[in-house]
């Protein structure tokens, strides 16, 4: 395959773009802070108004880092799934993985209040939410994988993913009907998606999850490339199908599940970003694609979050709505322009 050299300029451009969107993201928000003050605060100086420093350090910085982790991780999980299923329309949302995570979260947030009944069982640690969502997404992913082995048809697989989405939302409705107003509210807010509100500990945990996902993806680079030829060819190239498939599934489940747990179900990033990336990086080599989609996803997420923030206003739009508003047209545009979605 072609060396990474050819893409040096593109990578440089992406890193610059990431830096710019990061600055843009941090300098905008409900409280208007002049750009120069933002930069000087970031450089370690104390700004005119001391509360600005607090806002930037304690609120905007963690939010920006969450956006980066969420965007990069979701995009990577989308790329992994597109290669694993050899399907250009695969993504955590389309295949029902996010629905699985939602179900896990719903069972935990609303189900425990049902099961625990009248006892004051309110302990819902961040870790347990992450685990519940991860298990949910992991289970759906496994089922989809089993079905995918029997059904080679792309459309059938996507329809099955959609059906999983319906089943989950039905179960969630049933849960919602019986659960208390308080836990229902928690779930609804979670489902809007949000990259803010993460404590430092949560941020570190999310960072760890994404790091694990990236690590598993990196050790799968060679088999991911072989999967581009199809499973039989991959096997003939010495790839251990079971092992590498499982590694990729775990990576995807951890990424999509973990991120969904903390940031809510965020649509379209996983599906759209790999396709956007292939517009610039005209290669299928995962050594190039993995860092590229992560950078791209992080930029997109930062920009979406900046939009969601509605400059200088106190209201914040649900990030899930923004990514859909941005992502869905992108997918349509790609389809119309290329007639056919290439993978």
């Amino acid at each position, binding site marked *: 395959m072609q060396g990474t050299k050819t893409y040096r300029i593109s990578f440089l451009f992406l890193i610059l773009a990431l830096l710019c969107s990061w600055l843009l993201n941090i300098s905008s928000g409900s409280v208007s802070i002049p750009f120069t003050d933002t930069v000087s605060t970031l450089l370690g100086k104390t700004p005119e108004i001391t509360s600005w420093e607090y806002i930037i350090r304690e609120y905007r910085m963690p939010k920006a880092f969450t956006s980066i982790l969420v965007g990069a991780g979701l995009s990577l999980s989308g790329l992994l799934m597109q290669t694993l299923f050899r399907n250009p329309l695969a993504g955590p949302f389309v295949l029902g993985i996010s629905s699985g995570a939602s179900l896990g979260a719903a069972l935990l947030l609303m189900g425990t209040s049902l099961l625990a009944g009248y006892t004051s069982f309110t302990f819902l640690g961040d870790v347990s939410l992450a685990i519940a969502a991860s298990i949910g997404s992991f289970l759906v992913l496994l089922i989809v994988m089993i079905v995918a082995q029997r059904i080679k048809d792309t459309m059938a697989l996507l329809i099955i993913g959609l059906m999983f989405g319906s089943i989950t939302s039905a179960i969630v409705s049933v849960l919602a009907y019986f659960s208390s107003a308080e836990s229902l509210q928690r779930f609804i807010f979670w489902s809007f998606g949000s990259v803010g509100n993460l404590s430092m500990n949560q941020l570190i945990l999310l960072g760890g999850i994404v790091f694990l996902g990236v690590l598993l993806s990196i050790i799968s*680079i060679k088999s991911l490339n072989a999967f*581009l030829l199809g499973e039989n060819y991959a096997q*003939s190239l*010495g790839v*251990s199908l079971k092992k590498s498939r499982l590694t990729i599934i775990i990576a995807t489940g951890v990424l999509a599940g973990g991120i969904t747990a903390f940031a809510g179900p965020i649509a379209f990033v996983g599906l759209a970003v790999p396709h956007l990336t292939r517009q610039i990086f005209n290669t299928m080599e995962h050594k190039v694609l993995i860092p590229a989609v992560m950078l791209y996803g992080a930029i997109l997420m930062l920009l979406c979050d900046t939009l969601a923030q509605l400059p200088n206003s106190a209201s914040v739009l649900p990030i899930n709505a923004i990514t859909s508003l941005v992502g869905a047209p992108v997918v349509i545009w790609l389809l119309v322009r290329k007639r056919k979605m290439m*993978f």
Partner: protein
Amino acid sequence: MVKIGKNIVSVTDLAIGYESKTVAERINFELETGMLCGVVGINGIGKSTLLRTLGGFQPKLDGNIKLKGQNLEKYTSSTLSKELSVVLTEQPASKNLTAQELIALGRQPYTNWLGTLTKEDKQQIQASLDAFLLDKLRNNKCHELSDGQLQRVLVARAMAQDTSLILLDEPTTHLDLYHKVQILKMLQELAHNKQKTILFTTHEIELAIQLCDRILILDGKNHPFGDPCQLIEKKHFDRLFPSEMVQFDAKTGSFKVTK
């Protein structure tokens, strides 16, 4: 002259098929280095099943397959990938790969955990590109290639894998006569010049008779195997198809429609 060397494949009393159904049994043949061997037979007789069994994609039912003196089942997928490469009827899953990228994947058994290509890998890739006249097409995406070109890329990938045995499942389907001959001649050159053992299934019996060193006829009974001329002399091709439809003409080595 064809140099015939040491034994690469030996198949004894092989039965192939699926748990519920035996497709073919009592298959016997041996191939040595540098041999080009065609497998012929009517549709559904088990050509592809034989190839899949030899390639380790499905278990045999009975008998023995030895690759370089060792039982096929003893190979792990990673050791097998250095001895046996395949060209399947299925299209590559991603047609967004360039010809060169696809051929480079053939080097996977030899590269490190990241798949970094060494100087030797690059030489092998270049040699494969040259051997199959693909140098000018190297940066073309697979979806931009014609059927014949894509087939050449897939065979070049198998060559880059640098294995002693190459299996091809119907490499000539969907090609016109010119490209059929082209690909088979290239396979013949690869076998004779690079001392590869090549086994392919085909419906092009007349071309196989002219180009192959050995032919295996799957006829559902005793599966004759040998030199094409000997097989003609022994009238093995005559029984390949029902004689009320087509008849084999031993003089020209071709089939004629029965009038």
